[in-house]
């Protein structure tokens, strides 16, 4: 994998992460993680709670250090956050004192873009996530699904090449989640974004991805890789495709085996 990592959007090789848990004990969250995501590829990581999937995302985002191994994004070693990456968070992480428009423009503001210019750009992105009418609203006036659309617009505003999504739809009700999935694919298909998508929902991983990586816990590592050969564009019809059901079933088999072996539990 590391041989081809120059061309990869994201490449992790032998990455390990150890947490100090206090009283001189350590917890090995990641152990020799290997993964590679091609440019323009949509890859999901799925695994039981505590397997370290969010840890991987934070390392790639440049907001968490690691102890061993190599992490490259677009062929360059990660040393911190970078303008070519943007993250969408499980908790939305919107700023309640800023309007929706200013939340979308937040990343641009940090990069020093003048107010008029960043607002113009933010308006365009609000349009692409169908929230034009809510530019002047404040986050708490919006539903969870709408808030995450703002989170997505904020990430897209900085024009990243790599989009990191940390269980972005897990705090959103099931119906809205399905709509957001198709919307996300719709937006993604119009870009050349490479996406790393963390989830614990099997159908979500299969529906969205080109490949699904299955992680095992204690220590966290990638134990299986499933290529999702469902045709694109994927629509609501895809969810009724026998192949979709088959692939979701396969992911569940792999996860279930791991869970029963560990005696742990899986988050729905």
């Amino acid at each position, binding site marked *: 994998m590391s041989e081809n990592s120059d061309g990869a959007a994201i490449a992790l090789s032998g990455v390990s992460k150890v947490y100090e848990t206090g009283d001189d004990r350590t917890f090995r969250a990641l152990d020799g993680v290997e993964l590679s995501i091609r440019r323009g590829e949509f890859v999901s990581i799925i695994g039981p709670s505590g397997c370290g999937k969010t840890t991987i995302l934070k390392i790639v*985002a440049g907001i968490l250090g690691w102890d061993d191994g190599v992490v490259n994004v677009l062929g360059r070693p990660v040393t911190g956050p970078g303008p070519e*990456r943007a*993250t969408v968070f499980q908790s939305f*992480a919107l700023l309640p004192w800023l*309007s929706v428009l200013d939340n979308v423009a937040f990343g641009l503001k940090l990069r020093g873009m003048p107010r008029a210019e960043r607002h113009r750009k933010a308006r365009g992105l609000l349009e692409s996530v169908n929230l034009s009418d809510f530019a002047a609203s404040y*986050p708490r006036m919006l539903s969870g699904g709408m808030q995450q659309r703002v989170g997505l617009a904020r990430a897209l505003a900085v024009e990243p090449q790599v989009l990191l999504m940390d269980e972005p739809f897990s705090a959103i009700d099931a119906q809205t989640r399905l709509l957001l999935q198709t919307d996300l694919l719709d937006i993604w298909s119009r870009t050349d974004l490479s996406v790393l998508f963390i989830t614990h929902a099997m159908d979500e991983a299969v529906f969205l991805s080109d490949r699904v990586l299955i992680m095992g816990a204690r220590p966290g590592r990638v134990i299986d890789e499933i290529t999702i050969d469902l045709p694109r564009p994927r629509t609501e019809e895809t969810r009724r495709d026998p192949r979709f059901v088959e692939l979701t079933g396969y992911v569940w088999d792999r996860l279930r085996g791991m869970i029963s072996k560990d005696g742990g539990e899986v988050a729905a």
Partner: protein
Amino acid sequence: MITGRRLRSGIHHAGPFLVSVVLLAIVWEVVGRTADILTIPPLSAVLGAFVDMWVRGIITAPLLDSTLALLTGLAISLFVGTLVGVGIGLSRLVQLSIGPFVKAGLSAPMIAFVPVFMMLFGIGSTTRIATVVAFSVFIVATNAATAVRAADPRQLEMARSFGADRWQLFWQVRLPAGASYFLAGTRFGVSRGIKGLINGEVLIAVIGLGGLVKQYGTVFSMDQLYAVIILIILYAAIGVGLVTLIGRLLLRRSLVETN
């Protein structure tokens, strides 16, 4: 629209209070007239004394003088307190080395320091300014420390992921996230500062509103004494109310959003 609604509900809430004020005034007046004891003059006499003193400028000059000292002391408290508080909030070293002083200062009876201030600064305005600072600086610092810690770690993480440096984290996330604590600190600082001001002036005995309290109290001029006390109570209420109002205006957007 929102302001109008708030104003109207404010008047609604003021109703019962106005009734109790009127009742208190009536009881005071009746007791003052019938009991005929020196220490409880009727309210009308007190109000008469108030008007008389106001017109003759006996109150206005000390009022202005006290206000100037208060504002000077508060400016020092807000500046130093915020600086120290932000330091405590952001740095573990500062917290460990200075934090205990602030904690002690918060609960210590600062009035005990007034004689020390008098020896240090003399019987003058500097002493009461020092008293204002001593009363208010610790609460300002405590709230500033809380304010800079108030930011949601997930919001800070988000900002860092978009490349925010320490400076941007502070100005774009920590400061607005803690704004309501800064405001609370300022409000408590003002109310404690006014306490400090009057405490200091009563002990110094020759300047400001507190000086008037001391003078009239010593010679049993009860009409004037009550007039000054009422003025001080109103003064404190208006001072704190003003800060609250200014704070609301500054925070209007986020207040609209949280209410």
